């Protein structure tokens, strides 16, 4: 319907391969590849045409290439029947995808120093971001972590793209033992970072936001919320986020995110309706309260 919005396509599968603890699937999706910007995701239908699994599964895009008119690659773990079905796809099978979805990572205008923090498969969307930042002349440093060595995604590529690459694991099987946010402060100081980009589980994003705040630099976080549709209609993936006017609203991670300014996300209130959120029980509007963040872009 437009030249920049999401497309719904039946995409031929090129390859499904194991990458350590994850699977990576590559499909031919020319329009999606062309429109994609780092941080956006795709939503896949699983189980075939008569599937009893109705909800789409969202996946952050890890790579796009110009081959075959445009390919899209994303990473996943087998967590249930839907992702198990996905892991069984073979070359030439068709996959029903909608994408690209969500707001991408905003890119700095100037060639500044950027540090990318990824937890587990949350590192995947940081690779296209690293390429985009490098093309703008930015310095890129990477801090990637995971539960164990096989869950630190693509360390070799990270070393190649980034000026410095630091790795952490919870069990000490690779890199430094401990959370991925532990070495972040040191990396920010040594690399004289101007901005942090992070993707991973909520507790990790909360900690990364705290570290960025200690160093007085901005942080963009990409959240990994559970979604049912990915297109903004189901209202499942809401997160409490403060607007430019200071008012907290329950916003959809799929269309208002998945990328947010870290300090705006009410991490301590995720999974609740904060008492002061717009429209919370007992909430009373101030005379000049707008139901929509004035800084919000209108969709469509």
């Amino acid at each position: 319907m437009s030249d920049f919005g999401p497309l719904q396509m039946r995409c031929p599968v090129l390859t499904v391969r194991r990458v350590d603890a994850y699977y990576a699937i590559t499909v031919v999706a020319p329009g999606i590849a062309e429109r994609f910007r780092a941080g956006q995701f795709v939503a896949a239908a699983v189980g075939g045409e008569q599937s009893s699994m109705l909800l789409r599964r969202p996946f952050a895009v890890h790579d796009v290439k110009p081959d075959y008119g445009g390919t899209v690659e994303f990473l996943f773990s087998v967590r249930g029947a839907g992702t198990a079905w996905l892991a069984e796809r073979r070359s030439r099978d068709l996959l029903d995808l909608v994408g690209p979805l969500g707001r991408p990572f905003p890119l700095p205008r100037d060639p500044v120093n950027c540090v990318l923090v990824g937890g587990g498969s949350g590192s995947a969307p940081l690779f296209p971001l690293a390429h985009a930042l490098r093309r703008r002349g930015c310095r890129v440093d990477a801090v990637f972590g995971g539960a164990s060595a096989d869950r630190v995604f693509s360390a070799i590529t990270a070393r190649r793209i980034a000026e410095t690459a630091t790795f952490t694991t919870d069990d000490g099987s690779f890199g430094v033992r401990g959370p991925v946010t532990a070495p972040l402060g040191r990396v920010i100081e040594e690399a004289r970072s101007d901005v942090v980009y992070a993707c991973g589980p909520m507790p990790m994003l909360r900690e990364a936001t705290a570290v960025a705040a200690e160093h007085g630099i901005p942080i963009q976080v990409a959240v990994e919320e559970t979604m049912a549709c990915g297109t903004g209609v189901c209202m499942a993936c809401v997160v409490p986020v403060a607007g430019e006017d200071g008012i907290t609203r329950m916003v959809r991670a799929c269309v208002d995110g998945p990328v947010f300014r870290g300090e705006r996300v009410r991490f301590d209130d995720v999974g609740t309706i904060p008492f002061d959120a717009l429209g919370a029980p007992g909430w009373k509007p101030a005379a000049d309260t707008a139901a929509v963040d004035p800084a919000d872009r209108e969709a469509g």
Partner: protein
Amino acid sequence: MSTDLRVRLKDVELANPVLAAAGCAGTGRELAQFFDLAGIGALITKSVTVEPRAGHPAPRIAETPSGMLSATGLQGPGIEVFLQRDLPWLLSRGARVGVSLAGGGAAEYGELARRLSEASGVSFVEVNLSCPNPSDQGRHFTDDPREAARVVHAVRSHTRSDIPVFAKLAADVPDPVELAEACAQARADGLSLINTVRGMAIDPRTLRPAVAGGMGGVSGPAIRPIAVGCVHRVHAALPELPIIGGGGVRTGGDVLEFLAAGASAVAVGTVTFHDPSACVRIVRELEEALAEHGVDRVRDVVGAAHRPLGAAAGAGPLPRG
């Protein structure tokens, strides 16, 4: 010759019987990225409330076999923003708009209807009666036919006379026909059947309810036979009252099923989460299915399942070719 897909809901004519169901079409902007909203019969809005509502905490949705369980808690911006921002946008896109209303009592529903009647361009009103009634221990308005009738009466009294009012009913009540009759006596112009069916899913890992509110509403193909049965029973009892059918519609063939059971139009809901362009695909499939049955006018199929064998078009064994 192409099939005549036009249908009437009371005095309102729609281009075709396929509607986007309340709560499954967002503000319209989300789906407009995938198809032209003017190409469907009408879009029914998310339920509009008097004040903005933040809704229920996450997790709000869980997948269930051939369906889902949801408890979003009517999150929305309130009627003021709806009238200023969402309704004009929908009308600017050429969409026919049904507005779903949700409140906490007859007075609130009445106020919503009054404010809605000041706007122009609304094709019909749908009264969401599957809302907790604070003066009845949080039971839904549908759980007591008298309470449902009180709300319908308030909405009908405050709605401009040229806008038909449809009462949206639940099937998980002791007697859907009694509920429908109570709404008809309260001067509902039509009925919308059915809302979600109350249920629960337990997360196998945590052994806790899978959605934050505990109970939620089940939707999707899993509930379709319940919905078709409800439409059939109510149409048999109240054949003059137009019905918007719906519940688990996935294909054009499913729409035909609801029409035959007695619905005049059919709302497409949960499948939109799976297939954002479902509504237009279903219009196409319906046209093909009607052509296959040799039916030129979709209206002729309405209630076909109630007619004796061989009585009229669409009834009984279908002619081949």
